[in-house]
């Protein structure tokens, strides 16, 4: 079966008005229904790339395809695109504009022009999915950082997009919260949603993603399935990356000849099973 790509960036170049090149010939193909991680340190253009995916920014050269078709930058097409491609921004304090959690989440569906009763349904469904029903009557400024993050994700889920893009979702969250939110993403992935996220956490990207893109200075420098990307020593410039700890340990054990099988383990349980 041929792979179906829902979002593609073809030779995309972008410059900010002050002349800094943010993207420099980026080629990325996001497979439908998969979990893709874009890895790289701060300031390599991950956020700029995401803003291209729902038409906030327009490439200087190159093009963006959604479901195989080049996106058009008129109002109607953009509204459709933004319904289908949602972005959860890094800092929830900047994304949340309303003091009421309920009103906040209703903003997206309202913009899509649904009648009020449908909007209410969608808001409530999103709150249920994010398990924040109990925050309904709370003002935004009472929430903890983790709760604000959950609301900012519900903002997007309420619009029922095909693709959910998350910019550094794990930053500032403690491990327990990260696990909870990742559990929710796995559920969304089961519903055929495509999930893209940026991160600089190699351990996390390694065990979470189906496919990884590594970016540096506005360019894609490596791509592939996690185990492939990180074992391709020569190809990868390690100057601002490190190997996932699990992989490193796996390689040591393999060298010493105490690993079974040829599958590279993705988490500790898998590692445990492979040890002779």
């Amino acid at each position, binding site marked *: 079966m041929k792979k179906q790509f829902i979002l593609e960036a073809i030779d995309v170049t972008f410059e900010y008005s002050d002349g800094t090149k943010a993207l420099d010939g980026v080629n990325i193909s996001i497979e439908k229904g998969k979990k893709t991680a874009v890895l790289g340190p701060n300031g390599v253009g991950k956020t700029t790339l995401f803003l291209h995916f729902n038409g906030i920014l327009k490439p200087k050269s190159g093009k963006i395809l959604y479901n195989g078709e080049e996106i058009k930058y008129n109002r109607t097409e953009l509204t459709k695109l933004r319904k289908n491609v949602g972005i959860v921004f890094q800092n929830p304090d900047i994304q949340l504009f309303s*003091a*009421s959690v309920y009103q906040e989440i209703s*903003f997206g569906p309202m913009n899509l022009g649904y009648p009020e009763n449908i909007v209410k349904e969608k808001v409530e469904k999103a709150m249920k999915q994010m398990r924040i029903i109990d925050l309904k009557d709370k003002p935004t*400024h009472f929430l903890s950082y983790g709760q604000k993050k959950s609301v900012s994700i519900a903002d997007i889920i309420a619009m029922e997009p095909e693709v959910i893009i998350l910019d550094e979702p794990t930053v500032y969250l403690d491990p327990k919260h990260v696990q909870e939110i990742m559990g929710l993403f796995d559920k969304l992935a089961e519903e055929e949603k495509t999930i893209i996220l940026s991160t600089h956490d190699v351990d996390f990207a390694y065990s979470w993603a189906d496919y990884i893109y590594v970016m540096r200075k506005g360019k894609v420098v490596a791509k592939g399935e996690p185990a492939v990307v990180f074992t391709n020593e020569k190809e990868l410039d390690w100057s601002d990356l490190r190997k996932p700890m699990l992989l490193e340990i796996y390689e040591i054990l393999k060298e010493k000849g105490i690993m079974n099988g040829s599958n590279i383990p993705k988490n500790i349980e898998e590692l445990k099973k492979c040890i002779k």
Partner: protein
Amino acid sequence: MLIDSYSYTNRMYNVHPVEKLLFALLTMILCFEFDAYTNIAVIILMFVVTVFKAKIPARVYIKLMLIPFSFLIISILTLIINVIGDKSVALISLNIFGVTLGITEKGINTAVILFFRVLAVVSCLYFLALTTPVVDIINVLKKLKIPSLFLELLQLIYRLIFVLVEAAEEIYISQDSRLGYATLKNSYRSLGFLISSLFIKSYKDSQDLYVALEARGYNGELKVIGKDYKFCYKNIIFIILIELILISISMLLRR
């Protein structure tokens, strides 16, 4: 901001905001026509409703009532101490540089009425502010055909106040940790830094906020839907009854 946090956690949170607004504003306006005794009744009424019905701690309520006192006392002293021509009408008088200053009985009467009126109106304000979240007040204003631009600004500013207050607190603590407020000279410099960096942050964040809203299909209007409230006709009747009682008390006292 203590008042704001109580407005979301008090026991009257779920009462229809129109009912609360009606009660507070109607009483407020009537206070201007009431005599001192009726206004004392209003003060007691608002205290009882806010403390016993909405369950705002009495300690908090009384602390809030003390806020206006400094302004009140100084303004009233200013009002009642006057230059007077006829020493005989003065209860107390004093000559400074050939000018006679004094207090008259009439002045004191006016002051007493003013004093209790102010406290009565203030307690109406506190009832409203402590029981009704700003979000609800804005939702009520929406129904009054106030220009949507104004309401959108209200809504945005209310949310962003908390974002900036948090940022200001963080900057202040970080400066204080580095001895930014150890001397008066340090304090001025630090405060200047704080204000300018808050301003820069505001500018940058406003650009990011726009992008985040655009990504969710923003097209010039901040459309949202509010919570549903149920009118309680019993409450409306109750409010009208209370106002009627207050009016009749003042009528009786006037006679």
